[in-house]
């Protein structure tokens, strides 16, 4: 057993896990509401998913007179196949623009052609031109936010991995974290925890997100007793790079794919061909064709690849439109450079066919939250990709950026308010933290078991093949059996090659594996229950949408091997959002 002195104890009002935009926006809001705040980053703070984003941002700016918050809300719910949490979707539509203005006040400059008007463009699934952006993309967004944290003196702890939320019967007490750079355990007492650790794209063999997005926070919230909602829905981006190995799965941004449609909703998107030169998307969506939603396109491409009509490298061919090259070069120069380096000059000039493949992009479901990001565990808040409900069964392109700003701020405000309203002594969680830390030291002591990277790859392959774009009852059942087998027989003997405590990547991966298995099992359980096809969830044995399944699935972990998977009615549309807005404005 670890000694008491092996765990360093600290104290803060609001503990935020995650250094992407949701976590940083929460930190700004919580700090400005008077709370002391600490942000944990699993790697260096800049290693986050927001930074990798194209930064395209859906908001109703007033510049397109056809558009309105109501239209944005309706697009969100339509894209989400009517199972979104309607209240969350409405809040997103109504608050997105104010948060875009916040970003500009932080130092960002949205693209414009005249001084006070932003440039608008289309993204996947939207019915109006409403998306703003900036040429510095996710890099710019995260940079200006990071400097706002510095200005406020918010503590940022690099290389601190969230391990577990510690709670008693009725409230969060603190968190156990592993300081990877020093190999030291920390127990951080706090009045509120905000999980903003992003999604779980690393469950899949090919993914576009950063390597640290192993869904830690989602699994930790699940183990702390919170419910997951819509966790069966994983969004795959249809258009990503196929090679070289490091770039495989990285998003190839939408202008190249949308062609002139990027500017004009009536124009055609770039055609997609299989190796026989067939426009296979027409079989799946003869109306919208290649301008269809991301879920339809990703699945169509995956089926071509799985059925042997893909390229030898494992992709299909996108025929780009050279007309958009100049605009693409101006708006997204970094992608032109990537195309040039990865593929060649013809592809970079959008003159030669570009190999593309789908890739795991965004965890649509996540921890169930209320409009103020509170979970069913008192003191535990969740925002951003780790939360579920905003996007339902599928997400509009350009909606993750406003989501993480809008709900990041709400989580920060609510957590600060929560801390102010409770006066608790938190020291009782220490022993639980110590026991957990002790158990997680096992791979450092163990010999003869499998290495964590090997097991992680096995999980990623199983998820990609069976719990990805194309699913069926048999294969889901079989994968669940294999996961349980891994959990029972392989995980307990995981062994790391090096026994150092300092930046031991294998040890970190051993800890991630438990998180991956928890979310994987939740995802499979919900996917098995949902006997239909909807949005990002496609069952070959139930290929049609079923109106009886216009419902959510909640998943709760009851204990070792025991799960509650329940069908729940969709949270009804509500007119409350206006009142919520007024409250939000008054509180800041």
């Amino acid at each position, binding site marked *: 057993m670890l000694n008491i002195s092996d765990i360093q104890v600290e104290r803060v009002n609001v503990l935020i896990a995650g250094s992407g935009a949701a976590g940083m926006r929460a930190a700004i809001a919580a700090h400005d509401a008077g709370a002391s705040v600490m942000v944990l980053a699993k790697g260096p703070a*800049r*290693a986050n998913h927001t930074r990798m984003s194209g930064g395209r941002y859906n908001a109703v700016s007033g510049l397109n007179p056809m558009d309105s918050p109501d239209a944005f809300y309706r697009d969100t719910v339509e894209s989400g196949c009517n199972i979104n949490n309607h209240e969350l979707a409405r809040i997103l539509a109504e608050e997105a623009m104010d948060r875009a203005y916040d970003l500009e006040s932080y130092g960002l400059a949205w693209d414009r052609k005249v001084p006070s008007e932003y440039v608008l463009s289309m993204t996947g699934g939207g019915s109006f031109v409403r998306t703003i952006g900036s040429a510095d993309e996710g890099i710019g967004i995260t940079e200006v936010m990071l*400097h706002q944290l510095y200005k406020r003196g918010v503590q940022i702890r690099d290389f601190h991995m969230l391990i577990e939320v510690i709670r008693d019967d009725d409230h969060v007490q603190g968190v156990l974290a592993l300081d990877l750079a020093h190999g030291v355990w920390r127990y951080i007492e706090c009045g509120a925890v905000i999980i903003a650790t992003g999604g779980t794209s690393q469950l899949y063999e090919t993914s576009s997100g950063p390597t640290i997005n192993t869904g830690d926070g989602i699994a930790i919230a699940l183990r702390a007793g919170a419910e997951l909602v819509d966790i069966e829905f994983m969004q795959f981006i249809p258009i990503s790079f196929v090679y070289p190995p*490091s770039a495989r799965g990285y998003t190839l941004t939408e202008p190249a794919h949308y062609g002139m449609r990027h500017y004009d909703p009536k124009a055609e998107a770039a055609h997609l061909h299989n190796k026989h030169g067939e426009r296979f998307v027409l079989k799946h969506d003869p109306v919208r064709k290649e301008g269809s939603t991301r879920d339809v396109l990703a699945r169509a491409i995956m089926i071509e690849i799985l059925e042997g009509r893909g390229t030898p490298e494992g992709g299909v061919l996108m025929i780009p439109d050279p007309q958009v090259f100049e605009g693409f070069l101006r708006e997204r120069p970094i992608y032109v450079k990537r195309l040039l380096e990865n593929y060649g000059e013809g592809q970079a000039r959008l003159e030669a066919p570009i190999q593309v493949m789908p890739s795991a992009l965004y965890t649509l479901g996540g921890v169930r939250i209320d409009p103020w990001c509170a979970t069913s565990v008192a003191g535990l808040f969740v925002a951003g990709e780790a939360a579920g409900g905003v996007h339902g069964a599928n997400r509009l392109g350009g909606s993750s950026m406003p989501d993480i700003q809008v709900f990041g701020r709400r989580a920060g405000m609510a957590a600060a308010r929560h801390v102010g309203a409770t006066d608790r002594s938190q020291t009782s969680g220490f022993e639980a933290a110590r026991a957990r830390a002790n158990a997680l030291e096992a791979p450092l002591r163990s010999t003869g078991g499998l290495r964590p990277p090997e097991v992680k790859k096995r999980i990623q392959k199983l998820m990609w093949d069976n719990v990805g774009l194309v699913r069926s009852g048999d294969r889901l059942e079989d994968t669940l059996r294999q996961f349980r087998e891994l959990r029972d027989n392989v995980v307990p003997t995981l062994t790391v090659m090096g026994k150092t405590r300092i930046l*031991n990547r294998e040890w970190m991966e051993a800890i991630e594996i438990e998180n991956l298995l928890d979310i994987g099992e939740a995802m499979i359980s919900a996917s098995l229950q949902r006997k239909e096809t909807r949005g990002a969830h496609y069952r070959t044995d139930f290929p049609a949408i079923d109106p009886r399944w216009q419902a959510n699935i909640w998943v709760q972990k009851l204990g070792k091997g025991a799960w509650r998977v329940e069908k729940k009615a969709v949270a009804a549309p509500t007119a409350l959002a206006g009142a919520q807005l007024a409250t939000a404005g008054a509180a800041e």
Partner: protein
Amino acid sequence: MTDAVTMEVKILRSSPSEGVPSAYQHFTVQGTDNMRVLDVIRSIYENQAGDLAYQFACRIGRCGTCAMRVNGVPVLACQERCKLQMRIDPLSPFPVVRDLVVDRTEVETRYAQMALTPAGPQSNARVRPIAPAVAEELCHLDSCLACMVCVSGCPAVEEHAFDGPAFMLKLRHMQEHPADNGDRLGQALDGGLLECFACDACTQLCPADLSPAQAIRDFRRDMIIGSKPK
């Protein structure tokens, strides 16, 4: 399209906090010629040295956290094409945590001290007018990855009291921002602006295709003829 290759790689390993001194470890890696340096390192971690410490996250040149030196040249490992013979060192002149991972504490403290936030109201829900050309330039300057490749490759940093090109670029970003009212030229001078001897190495090395050297030239021009009014 891709050819199989055999690479000879040596990596400088150390663990200062555990008293493990620096020493090169040699690896032979079978791969393809389109691999990036990061792919080679990941292959070594997965197949030969599970205890190798290295840092990366995005693998596509955006997070800026995988900077290291390959055959003496500072690069992002995820962007640099592999070579048949590689000597890989942690990014100098920064302190090493372990193997290829450096401690950025001082770097981040420096950024924090520079107060890189524009002034003005923080919650006014209105468009702040910015000339389109200025907005474009702001976006350009704000795409610095803070990867420290230019700082590592700057001969002036090595020899003089100079913060380094990346910091000059960030100060220039603020200088160009219409809502900023800080004395950015003064900060740049305090950070060693005049120590730069205009070799342009930073611009050649920048993985984001930025020109810190131009930011430095702009500040020097401001010194002589004064800056444009905002």
